[in-house]
């Protein structure tokens, strides 16, 4: 089965061959058919190839490996392997409560209209700051973590809904009056400054 990446490479190869025809023999544009070939080769096909390439890059930018490719994010990647269920990201990652290959994106995107676009723009900002500016030390979220991101998965889940504590404060959780992450209930996150003092989980091959 041909994967999407192979298809992109095939399309790129075909586009280059088509363009080469026009580059080597531009005189073909004297005829009507030649004009059509030139229009396809120099306008339509490159647009399609660039669009598919951009889509592939967007898809890849959601992967954990992509986020961790920046040196500054390395400890955050390590924190996903902390052997302590109190570490919320590690527990979610290790128990596949989130897709492990999209771990960062799943929790740090906005589950709102245009949330994906917002997350991508923030990602571009991260890259800009990492290369041309001075990143925050320690890294902090731009805005407080929104309960909406937790409730996107947990709302409606039996283990969450059956908890009398959650039920009693559901309204406040939904309106962000009480934070899931900072009100003392689930407040252990990446804690990268503590990574020297914790045990790590080693996944079996």
């Amino acid at each position, binding site marked *: 089965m041909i994967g999407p*990446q192979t298809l*992109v*490479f095939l399309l*790129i190869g075909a*586009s*280059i061959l088509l*363009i*080469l025809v*026009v*580059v080597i023999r*531009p*005189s073909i*544009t004297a005829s009507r058919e030649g004009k059509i070939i*030139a229009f396809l*080769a*120099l*306008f339509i096909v*490159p*647009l399609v*190839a*660039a669009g598919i*390439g*951009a889509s*592939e*890059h967007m898809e*890849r*930018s959601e*992967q954990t*490996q*992509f986020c961790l*490719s*920046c040196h500054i994010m390395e400890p955050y990647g390590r924190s996903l392997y902390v052997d302590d269920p109190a570490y919320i990201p590690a527990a979610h990652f290790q128990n596949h409560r989130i897709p492990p290959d999209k771990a960062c994106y799943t929790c740090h995107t906005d589950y709102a209209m245009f949330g994906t676009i917002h997350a991508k723009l923030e990602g571009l900002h991260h*890259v800009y700051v*990492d290369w041309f500016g001075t990143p925050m030390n320690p890294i902090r979220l731009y805005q407080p973590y929104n309960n909406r991101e937790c409730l996107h998965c947990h709302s409606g889940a039996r283990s969450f809904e059956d908890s009398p504590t959650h039920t009693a404060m559901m309204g406040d959780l939904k309106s962000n009056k009480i934070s899931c992450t900072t009100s003392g209930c689930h407040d252990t996150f990446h804690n990268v400054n503590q990574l020297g003092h914790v045990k790590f989980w080693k996944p079996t091959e």
Partner: protein
Amino acid sequence: MLRKLRLSGILLILGLMVEALSLCWNNALSFMSFVVVGGIFFASGILLFLYSLVSSNEANS
């Protein structure tokens, strides 16, 4: 016009090659090279092609 078509084709080939290369890796650098370098080649190639159409029409009229 033919020269512009050639140049436009070469720019687009360069853009496509940058795209192909950028897809060989999965990191921020490859993404940015696709967006910035590839984007410049693609945009200039396509705009030059469109300009060649307009300028040839002007010459004909």
